[in-house]
């Protein structure tokens, strides 16, 4: 099958949707020209679709959030790029209060088909204002969907689904994944929102994760296979609303759970997943639910210090070993 980089697959998904539907447009800071945003995701789009559909803006995140809601409410399909994840702090009202409540509070009359894309710029040496991860901020927002792909295939399929979706979607990318290569079919396809994906089957432990975490988990699974431990890797893909059935099934099978995610541990996405399991699947568990996540320390601008607070494959391995002990 065709091999593609994550960033190219994602872009291809957006291009297909823009060709299909003239009401889809892109807006954000420095997204135009041949640059196409700091990560090049929208590279070349302006050339094909023009300045009216690939709209450059000032540093005005609040207005960008508002534009998403307003353009969606009045019938277009905006795709907003927020330059990096820690700036999502600046659109919380627009997502949580405005977009999240609109369909319900309008009596089911005003859908809000908007996508806010951003990139969690992790593992770079740039300090806490650049390396944040605001995913958990949108976990307590009814009406909002939170989609986080881990592979080129999912990135393309999920961005297409997100653009077509009639509800507001926060779509989070992870900078270390952009260059990742993977299978991407030539034929059109969609990855449905709300469905998790078993990225690797296993029977002893389930690692529940999303985004970059998936790759840590897959690495850990491979490592542990050598020791005879069979690890299932459950990629949530849609983090809100998350796929409860998939979690239930996997937990029933393995009875052990590790949740891993790159954000700060306390109050992170993993909290909800663990709480759900502790509430609805506790009888299936034979061990504590472990969370492998970043330390609760603002990201420093220093390689050594980053080592001290961040997680990786090894930490997932350690957690699994602990559970199997």
């Amino acid at each position, binding site marked *: 099958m065709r091999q593609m980089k994550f960033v190219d697959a994602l872009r291809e998904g957006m291009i297909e949707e823009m060709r299909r539907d003239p009401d889809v447009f892109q807006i954000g800071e420095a997204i135009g020209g041949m640059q196409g945003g700091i990560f090049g995701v929208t590279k070349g789009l302006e050339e094909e679709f023009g300045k009216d559909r690939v709209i450059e803006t000032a540093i005005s995140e609040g207005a*960008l959030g508002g534009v998403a809601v307003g353009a969606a409410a009045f019938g277009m399909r905006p795709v907003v790029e927020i330059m990096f994840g820690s700036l999502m702090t600046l659109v919380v009202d627009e997502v949580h209060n405005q977009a999240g409540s609109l369909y319900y509070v309008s*009596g089911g009359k005003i859908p809000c088909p908007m996508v806010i894309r951003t990139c969690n710029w992790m593992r770079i040496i740039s300090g806490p204002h650049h390396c944040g991860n605001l995913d958990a901020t949108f976990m307590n927002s009814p*009406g909002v969907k939170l989609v986080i792909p881990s592979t080129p295939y999912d990135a393309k399929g999920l961005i297409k689904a997100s653009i077509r979706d009639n509800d507001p979607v926060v779509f989070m990318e992870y900078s270390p994944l952009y260059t990742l290569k993977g299978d991407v079919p030539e034929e059109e396809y969609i990855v449905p929102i709300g469905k998790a994906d078993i990225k690797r089957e296993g029977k002893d432990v389930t690692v529940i994760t999303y985004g970059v975490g998936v790759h840590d988990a897959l690495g850990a699974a491979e490592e542990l296979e050598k020791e005879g431990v069979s690890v299932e890797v459950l990629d949530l893909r849609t983090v809100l609303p998350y796929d409860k059935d998939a979690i239930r099934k996997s937990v029933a099978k393995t009875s052990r759970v590790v949740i891993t995610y790159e954000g700060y541990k306390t109050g992170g996405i993993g909290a909800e997943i663990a709480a759900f399991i502790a509430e609805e699947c506790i009888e299936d568990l034979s061990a504590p639910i472990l969370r492998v996540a970043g330390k609760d320390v603002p990201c420093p601008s220093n390689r050594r210090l980053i080592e001290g607070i961040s997680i990786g494959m090894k930490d997932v391995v350690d957690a699994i070993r602990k559970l199997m002990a």
Partner: protein
Amino acid sequence: MQPTSGEMLGIYETMLLIRTTELKMVELFKKGEIEGHMLPCLGQEAIPASLAKVYADTDYLVTGHRGGGHYVARGCDYNALWAELYGRVDGVTKGRGGQIHLMDMTKKAMTGNAVVGQQWGIATGAGFVARKRGVMVVAVGGEGSTNRGVFHESLNMAAVQKLPILYVIEYNDRQMWNVCSETTAGERIATRALAYGMEGASVDGNDVLAIHAKAAEFVRKIREGSGPCLLECITAKWTDSVSNLRNLPENVEAMKKPDFDPVLRFETRLRIDGVLTDSLDLQIKENVRQKLQGALSFALASPVPDRYDGIDEVYSQPV
């Protein structure tokens, strides 16, 4: 370009309908027949009524929290308004949003929001749609909302993109318990437009013809591609909210003066100009009365929602 006599009578009728609607709302709230948070635009009726004669049916309307008058002036579903106030299933938002979230998208009217200032960003988004569809946006908010940063971000973005948006400020010098001297720097809100190379003007917001004239001029320019303009209408709200009715005319003598009462003022004007006669006035008031009566009956006949109504309407598509 003064409105025709017919248009003026239309504006007058709209003002009366808003006035009558909101006084009824206050009355029923006091009696405990309707409940919730409600923000009347009593005293500001000239603005929605005049604007509605300036923009077209195909244009988009986005307001903040004090949007009830605009909802009515726009011709949004009047029966559904009353069903909404009564919290019934036939309310325009099925009884969910209440008076501060009135929205009727069949009329392209998002006339509700309760986070002050967020309408400016939303209107900017509507502006991109309007630009594509060849229509324009009328965006409305109180002077207090212009102290939110998103107002400034929106004006800048709309000006750069030359979006077809008429920004309308309902300047009533009050933000809940605050007055502008405590909160707001600069002489007039209209000057805030200048920072973005945008045209801005202030008019007497209790004077129908002044609003109409300037709004019509701006709308023409906007349709010709000028980009956004800003119209500040100086007015006075009689009361902040139905749960805080200190300033109603029955309480405050000054409010009874025609200057404070745009409806009375416009009525006087129409009579002096010979546009409004006694018999016409009677007929208009009867129209308004019937419309209200009809809507009240409609509302009261509408069922109360089931307590679980809507819990499956948080997402538009099942996940």
